[in-house]
């Protein structure tokens, strides 16, 4: 029992690291092995995560639309998404004759790879992180903006006007909303004084930034949620794949597993965005503490840090899903008005407020 309590993700990771270091003599080979193991763990984590998110999305959508949702395959329909995956596996991965075949097949790979890269600096639990680099926040925001290249590539190479229109819309959208996302991330970086993810989490030991940062941080949290919903092309900002206007937008021509990779990328992106929001604003894996309530804080410490992280992340995922099933899609002009006339000026003023607050030390 005592042994069981001491096991944590960080102890497993460091144990594995030490074991590889002693058993494999070559330093290079040990490092490569460790990377491969980390990558495999990531895949083993992400694919079931996408199943869970897909099931969650369908159930949340159903309940919000007063329906039942999937309930035939498996208990309560839990295996529905597995059945869908099997169906997609058996489908023909068609490449249109007129398309640019190399780019057409490369585009879904680029999207998935950018998602996988962006997940690297996210802290899943206490001292459990794939790559704790010193510019974590900057890295994530720059990697995630590469995804637009994948979308543009998919739209362009399909040789289909719907795909191209969807991709162009997506390009305009991501380029504009990137600014607000960046500015709201900066407001946390100003308070923390570091771009490193672990530093940002540690700085919230006495309280999460959303509680300590007064109204400006709440505003930047809301702006981050809105802008990142736009950046991952989810409703109400799903102009890139607007079903009613563009059939399916940039992935109209994709089928089979190539289409499944777009879905995979969409759900991983959703997870990443929520994980970043949870890390920056809600304290990542940091437990919930209230001032001097020692007993309460102690109970909170007993909940494993990975559960804290996943709980916060899923709460934000739920909010983003609720956005999708509540709000109607925006027009292109409304989309750009929202960004350039509202979100960007507000987040600029907000950044100044946060800076003043940080200089004067007004936050808790």
């Amino acid at each position, binding site marked *: 029992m005592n042994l069981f309590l001491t096991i944590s993700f960080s102890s497993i990771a460091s144990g594995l690291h030490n074991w590889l270091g002693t058993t494999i003599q070559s330093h290079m080979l040990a490092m490569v092995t460790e990377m491969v193991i980390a990558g495999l763990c990531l895949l083993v984590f992400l694919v079931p995560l996408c199943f869970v998110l897909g099931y969650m999305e369908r159930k949340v959508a159903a309940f919000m639309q007063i329906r*039942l949702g999937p309930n035939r395959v498996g208990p309560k329909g839990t295996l529905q998404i597995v059945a869908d995956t099997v169906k997609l596996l058996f489908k023909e991965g068609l490449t249109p004759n007129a398309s640019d075949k190399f780019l057409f097949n490369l585009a879904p790979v680029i999207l998935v790879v950018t998602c996988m890269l962006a997940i690297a600096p996210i802290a899943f639990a206490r001292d459990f992180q794939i790559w704790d680099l010193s510019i974590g926040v900057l890295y994530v925001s720059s990697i995630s903006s590469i995804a637009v290249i994948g979308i543009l590539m998919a739209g362009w190479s399909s040789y289909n006007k719907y795909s191209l229109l969807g991709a162009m819309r997506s390009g305009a959208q991501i380029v504009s909303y990137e600014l607000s996302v960046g500015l709201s991330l900066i407001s946390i970086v100003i308070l923390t004084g570091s771009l490193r993810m672990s530093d940002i989490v540690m700085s919230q030991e006495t309280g999460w930034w959303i509680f300590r940062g007064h109204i400006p941080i709440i505003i930047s949290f809301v702006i981050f949620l809105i802008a990142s919903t736009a950046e991952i092309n989810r409703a109400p900002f799903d102009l890139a794949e607007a079903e009613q206007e563009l059939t399916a937008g940039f992935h109209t021509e994709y089928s089979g597993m190539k289409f499944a990779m777009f879905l995979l990328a969409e759900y991983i992106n959703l997870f990443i965005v929520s994980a970043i929001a949870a890390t920056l604003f809600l304290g990542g894996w940091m437990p919930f503490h209230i001032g001097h309530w020692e007993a309460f804080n102690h109970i909170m410490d007993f909940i494993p840090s990975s559960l804290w992280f996943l709980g916060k992340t899923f709460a934000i995922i739920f909010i983003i899903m609720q956005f999708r099933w*509540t709000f109607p899609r925006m027009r292109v002009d409304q989309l750009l008005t929202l960004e350039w006339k509202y979100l960007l000026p507000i987040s600029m003023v907000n950044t100044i407020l946060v800076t003043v607050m940080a200089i004067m030390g007004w936050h808790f």
Partner: protein
Amino acid sequence: MFLKEYFGTIYKTVKSLLTGMKLTGYYFTHPKEIQTEEYPDNRATLTMFDRFKGEVVMPHDENNEHRCTGCQACEIACPNGTIKIITKQELQPDGKKKKAIDTFVYHLELCTMCNLCVVACPSDAIKMAQTFEHSVYDKKQLKKVLNNPGSKIMEGVE
């Protein structure tokens, strides 16, 4: 003035978005609001609502008597020839001949459940039933005769 309008827009937007989220949140947390029914499973307890129109039927009482006088108002009212009434001349006890129905033919495959025949009927002889499981393998089975064999018109219905 401009600033007032600007922040007024933001206030109105946030307020209306939150109203929407409150409603969907209410639906999410209250599964009893769900309208969907698991149809083949709940066949035993399934009750259709009053105004559901499944098919035209002709009610008969315990003496095998219906209320149809054979006036053919329903046949005239039907927009796509669903109803075909074959009449006969029936000899009354007092020696007079009277028009009565021989067969009331109803083509379910042509019916659009528009309810016009039921509205047109002057003697309330036909009504809409709430059954809806009509699928059959042969089209011929959809042609129905609504009056029971050996049935006759109820006393006092003119």
